[in-house]
């Protein structure tokens, strides 16, 4: 019955495509309203994507987005909303930077040590929200938002020169990391270097898919997301699952800052990118929590980021890209729900039709099938 598979693919693609079309149309309306050419910005940005140095920037940026979005998606898959990815990755990156500046092991040990530090820090920070939810019933949304704010304060504290901070001019840093912790990039000539840890992002994506779709744990997690009550009745311990999912989500979030930390900045400073965790939420939504979908969404987001500065040179505001990102998120939420409902109903009808036509699995030319209206 390949028909239903094809249908599922169609439904999977329909949501994002509708959302993108709507977002582009609305952005054009905004451009028109401000008296600008509603199409030229797109051609300008598409042109940017053809330059190899911009492509490298896009890939590098997308790797951060990708990991952050995967972290959010893990939570989404079981109906947990980890808004705290932002605080988790920043704190994790800082801890990794501090460890990297103070420990000096050979590279084969140093890099895994830094990765482990980041994972544990992220998991710990998310785990607080998980424990609060499991023991006291605190909504993870509220707890992780609070923890973001607390993370900012903790980072400010750790930046104090009397703690781990190193002042470089006006900038707060954590001091330069030992060279053994630097991950060499992939040299692509004049265009620059692709972060070595882009590979980590790819591996995480594969791991995410394998664990979720091919393991018992993944099944339990998805069941919990699909129906908490059915999962509990099937034998999932809901509390343990909430905690585990938070820890996994936080652990992945912890890795989101590492490609740039180990590949480029080698210190955690005021210039370290912020807000990636929040962007990850939109990217996870657009990517429908699927590793491939998120990859496309992360590249799209990175492209909008890296291609938009060019608009400034042509009399357009580069904030057009931000407007578009916002519109995409709104459009995505609406279109997915609409497509989901439509798809469910469509399938119910088709199943009804196939049954009415006597097309029953395993039936031996039994045309006496009951015409039951698919019900729920």
């Amino acid at each position, binding site marked *: *019955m390949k*028909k*239903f*598979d094809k249908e599922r693919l169609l439904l999977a693609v329909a949501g994002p495509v509708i959302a993108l079309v709507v977002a582009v149309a609305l952005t054009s309306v905004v451009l028109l309203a401000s008296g600008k050419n509603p199409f030229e910005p797109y051609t300008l940005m598409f042109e940017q994507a053809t330059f190899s140095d911009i492509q490298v920037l896009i890939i590098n940026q997308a790797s951060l987005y990708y990991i952050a979005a995967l972290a959010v998606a893990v939570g989404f898959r079981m109906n947990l909303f980890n808004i705290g990815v932002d605080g988790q990755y920043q704190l994790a990156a800082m801890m990794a930077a501090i460890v990297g500046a103070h420990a000096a092991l050979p590279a084969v040990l140093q890099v895994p040590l830094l990765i482990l530090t980041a994972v544990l820090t992220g998991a710990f920070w998310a785990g607080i929200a998980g424990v609060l939810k499991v023991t006291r019933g605190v909504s993870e949304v509220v707890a992780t938002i609070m923890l973001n704010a607390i993370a900012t304060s903790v980072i400010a504290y750790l930046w104090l020169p009397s703690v781990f901070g190193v002042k470089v001019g006006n900038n707060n840093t954590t001091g330069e990391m030992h060279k053994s912790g630097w991950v060499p990039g992939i040299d692509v000539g004049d265009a620059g270097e692709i972060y070595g840890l882009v590979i980590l992002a790819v591996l995480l994506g594969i791991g995410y898919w394998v664990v979720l*779709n*091919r*393991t*018992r*744990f*993944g*099944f*339990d997690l*998805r*069941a919990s997301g*699909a*129906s908490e*009550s*059915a999962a*509990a*009745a*099937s*034998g*999932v*311990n809901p509390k343990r699952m909430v905690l585990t999912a938070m820890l996994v989500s936080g652990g992945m979030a912890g890795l989101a800052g590492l490609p740039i930390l180990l590949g480029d900045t080698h210190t955690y400073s005021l210039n370290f990118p912020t807000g990636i965790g929040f962007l990850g939420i939109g990217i996870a939504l657009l990517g429908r929590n699927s590793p491939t979908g998120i990859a496309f969404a992360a590249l799209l987001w990175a492209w909008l980021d890296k291609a938009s500065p060019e608009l400034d040179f042509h009399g357009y505001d580069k904030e057009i890209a931000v407007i578009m990102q916002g519109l995409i998120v709104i459009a995505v939420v609406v279109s997915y729900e609409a497509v*989901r409902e439509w798809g*469910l109903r469509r*399938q*119910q*009808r*088709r*199943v*009804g*039709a*196939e*049954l*009415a*036509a006597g*097309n*029953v*699995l*395993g039936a031996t030319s039994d045309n006496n*099938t*009951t*015409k*039951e*209206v*698919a*019900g*729920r």
Partner: protein
Amino acid sequence: MTAVELAGITKRFPGVVANHDIHLSVRKGTVHALVGENGAGKSTLMKILYGMQKPDEGTIAVNGEQVTFSSPADAIVRGIGMVHQHFMLADNLTVLENVVLGSEKLHGIGSKARRTILDLSKRYGLGVRPDVLVEELGVADRQRVEILKVLYRGARILILDEPTAVLVPQEVDALFDNLRELKAEGLSVIFISHKLGEVLSVADDITVIRRGTTVGTAVPSETTPRQLAELMVGSELPTPETSESTVTDKPVIEVEDLTVLSADSVSTGKGSASLLMDQVERGAVRLVLDHVSFTIHAGEVMGIAGVEGNGQTELIDALIGLKNADAGVIRFTGDDITSWSTRKRREQGIGYIPEDRHRHGLLLESPLWENRILGHVTERPNAKGIWLDIKGAQEDTRRIVEAYDVRTPSIDVTAASLSGGNQQKLIVGREMSHKPRFLIAAHPTRGVDVGAQAAIWDLIRAARREGLAVLLISADLDELIGLSDTLRVIYNGKLVADADPATITPEELGSAMTGAASGHLENEELAEQVELAEQAESPAQTPADAPEDEAR
């Protein structure tokens, strides 16, 4: 004089013909029963009559006048009212407020409305108290409020959708008295049901609907439940064999003093039993299960009768491990499983047919083969080690679909696309595939069509012969009596009465369910009859074969 005349009604949904060439004629001042199994098209037909759906073909005439409805408002104007199966009342409002809600223009919301309500209530013997909060009312009272609501809006033709599904026999009788009052006042009632005994006792005319079309009419006085059932199903019914006892003396599940506190009370954890009892005494905590003890042996089906909400859900949850026992012990084949997790219980051979299959038994938006994994993710053929065995699960799903006659075009469709009966067959097949030693069967045939019902009964009987212990919880008293080896009645969290299914009648069971009777229930007359019959080796009227007239 006809109140309602439906002629040649056809309604197509894409790919499915829900109604086809339906003819229905309701005489004024009568109760007209519309019977048919689930999915036969009764609900669609009533939605058409109530203006919620438009027919593709055919005509509707009300009081001889041809009409078209585009919304329920049009139907209400014409004097048609509908009492839905699921009540549509606001719990936190009074009866008066609920009745006037949405029809404030009719008689205002004050004393005039109250007078009208009291008038109606008196005229039809509904006994409604306008100032009581709906949340304080029982099911039967709520139903009367629903009826009053419809009458208040001026309905002369009432549609009652499965009104007896939620009532105990005594309440059913009261409802029928109300219906007779309505009839006497010249109102017409369309009564949808699949409980044939009731239909025969209350209806003046019967129309049978099967596979979306009207297949015949019947006059109650000249029809037996069996004839009616055969008309509904369209074939001779399978007769359940008189069940020879398969009960062994090997206890499978032993429950001792199982006590569960109401969910809203804060769990105090272990070791604070005395503190707990203090709270119970002060009334701060309610016992939803109160020292429940029973034993089920291999090959035994123990039925639990009771009005919903008397602790059945908590008992099921405690047995499957969704709720912790606050006191008491549960033993499964000798092991104390009180502290086992749900997963361990299921792995060790406790099967579970949940009372709400959408909430507890299925992932509605997942494909069938994933639903086959649900609940048994750690077991073969679904898993090898920590990995899912997707091929194995899919192959086994195909096997279940064939062996248990789940009607589906594919195992890749979502569970939501199947009809209720087919969803249930999938669940039953899944649970039986893991060879349970103890099966919790909560409402195993609720919302399931006749064919599937018989199949599920057969499965339970077959498994019982092989030594399965079954806890059967059902609102369907005939099913309980027909399937069980022993019967218990649960009331207010306690097992208050026991009965021998060979001699008990639904009415006696019903009175115990309302708390009116307790202890060992026995119908002496019937008991004697059965003894006589057993001597004569032809059990003439054992209620054990009752489920056959309970076609649905």
